[in-house]
């Protein structure tokens, strides 16, 4: 994914700190968000992602550091003149106004004529698929419709940056998945920088060009979804995004970025520098995703490396089956996932199997 590489910078953070009294909510945020990018701030609750979003919007001041939007320092620039608009978690639809009045609210100070404004409102309603809803009262709308009104209302001012604060968290699963796709389409259509705050890693992976994973007020890793998933730079990130097995390892040698290790149950492996993020002084472990491991069914061979295993647990998911397997006669247990394709049996607990794996799938955390 090289989408973001050559784009101009839209937002830049330089050592941004934010204190609430003694509480250090943002602890030195650095990084850039590119123009036209779909960017996500991902992290558990309390990690500072919403605070960071609100400092971009101008609802929160920062204690130190610099936030630049479109090459302008935002220090002292109030929310109502920043080139950003926000879709709130609660949608914040004005309850005493109609849909059209809500969407057109931002045009109050616009010098255009009434008819031109009404046309702009209609255009926005059409864009979010709410043509003909203009006269409805705000409270007559469903959750998904309210969300669309909030989007239309924020986009009518043609902001440089659209901020979305957990906009899908109030919707049910089906609607959420539907809106994810709609949001991606909408973002491509308008070409505006979208910044999404979410605690749902799947949502972030699906929607974003790049993701900043945040823990305890800092950005742990800023990367595109694939890198984040395949090459997490810490155990914490690896655990937060998807499922990952951790296998104890010992470091044998380290030459020019290549690290040779002995992973318990797997044997000796040489890892390149992308598989070995900077050390953090932890016990060395290698991480590997469940889908990078394959059970070999009788008669199957593999070009990858393989290891003996003993099935300890079988978890049936319909489209997938998860197996918990002891590796190579050790007490190291990993979880692996197999797609349930026709003709493939579900194996029983206690079955001796072979597990194929690829050194390329490993990441070393130490």
């Amino acid at each position, binding site marked *: 994914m090289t989408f973001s590489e050559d784009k101009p910078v839209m937002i830049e953070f330089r050592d941004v700190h934010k204190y609430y009294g003694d509480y250090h909510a943002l602890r030195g945020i650095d990084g850039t968000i590119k123009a036209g990018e779909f960017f996500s701030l991902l992290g558990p609750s309390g990690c500072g992602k919403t605070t960071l979003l609100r400092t971009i919007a101008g609802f929160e001041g920062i204690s130190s550091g610099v936030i630049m939007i479109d090459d302008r320092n935002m220090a002292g620039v109030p929310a109502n003149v920043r080139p950003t*608009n926000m879709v709130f978690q609660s949608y*914040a639809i004005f309850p005493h106004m109609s849909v059209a009045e809500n969407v057109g609210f931002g045009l109050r100070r616009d010098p255009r004529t009434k008819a031109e404004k009404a046309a702009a409102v209609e255009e926005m309603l059409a864009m979010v698929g709410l043509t003909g809803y203009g006269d409805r009262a705000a409270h007559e709308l469903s959750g998904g419709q309210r969300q669309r009104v909030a989007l239309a209302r924020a986009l009518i001012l043609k902001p440089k940056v659209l901020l979305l604060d957990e906009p899908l968290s109030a919707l049910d699963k089906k609607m959420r998945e539907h809106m994810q796709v709609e949001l991606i389409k909408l973002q491509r259509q308008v070409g505006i920088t979208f910044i999404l705050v979410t605690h749902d890693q799947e949502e972030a992976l699906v929607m974003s060009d790049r993701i900043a994973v945040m823990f305890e007020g800092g950005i742990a890793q800023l990367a595109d979804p694939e890198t984040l998933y395949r090459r997490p730079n810490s155990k914490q990130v690896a655990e937060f995004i998807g499922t990952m097995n951790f296998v104890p390892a010992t470091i044998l040698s380290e030459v020019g970025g290549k690290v040779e290790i002995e992973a318990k149950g797997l044997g000796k492996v040489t890892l390149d520098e992308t598989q070995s993020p900077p050390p953090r002084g932890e016990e060395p472990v290698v991480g590997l995703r469940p889908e990078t491991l394959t059970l070999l069914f009788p008669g199957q061979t593999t070009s990858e490396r393989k290891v003996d295993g003993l099935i300890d647990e079988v978890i049936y998911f319909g489209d997938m089956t998860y197996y918990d397997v002891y590796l190579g006669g050790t007490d190291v247990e990993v979880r692996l996932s197999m797609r349930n394709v026709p003709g493939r049996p579900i194996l029983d607990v206690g079955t001796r199997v072979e597990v194929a794996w690829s050194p390329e799938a490993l990441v070393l955390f130490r």
Partner: protein
Amino acid sequence: MKDAPILRSYAVLYLIFLYGPIIILPMFAFNDNTIVSFPLKGFTTKWFAEMWSDPNLRIALQNSLIIALSTATLSTVLGIFAARASVRYKWPGKTAVVGLIMVPLVLPEMIVAMALLVVLLSIGVPLSIFTIIMGHVLICMPFAVAILTSAFQSLDRSLEEAALDLGEDAWSTFRLIVLPLVMPGIMASFLITFTISIDEFIIANFLGSGKPILSVYIFGQFRFPAKVPAMLALGTLLVAFSIILLTIAEYFRRRGVAKTGGKNSGGFL
């Protein structure tokens, strides 16, 4: 409830005791007899005419209306400031200040009235309608603040942020978003403080220095048995006026609820 006849009769008796005496008011106001006692004699409207022919009543009514309207306006406006400040902002001494505003609620009114009288006289402020208004604002503030605080509390903060975000400044956000949404609270505060003020007796008596005020006037008239039917006529009008006022308030409250799609819970009627 069907299976609890005792509870049901208790409830019915309770309501009769509560509202029964008020029904006596119009009964005798239209009764053609100076003595307020059963049996009723005949229908008449002469007590209303007699009541209205007393110029003192008209002065008292005018004074009371001035006092009640000023009190309701002042305490509601001040209540808006206080409620907004206590709900939205953090500042040192907030708990103490809000607590002190609420104190008159539990302070005997007699003591408030005496204390105010002593202070006003000692610093040489002449007693007037204005001093009564001041006293009334003092005792009405807790009600206004309590009602308005709950109105402001139910306001989603992100609505204001959304308006700011869409280009409005703090004042226009307040005018376009906050004010319309707390309007039912403002109406309720205005009506309740108005009602408290118009029938308040102790402060009006202490700080009015004998000026004709409705409550003081009525109390004075009750000393003359011949005047009682006329006062009952006045009372009848006041009851009718209260019902009209509450109906109007309830109409606006329901319309507000319907407009914002909230669930209609509670209310006066």
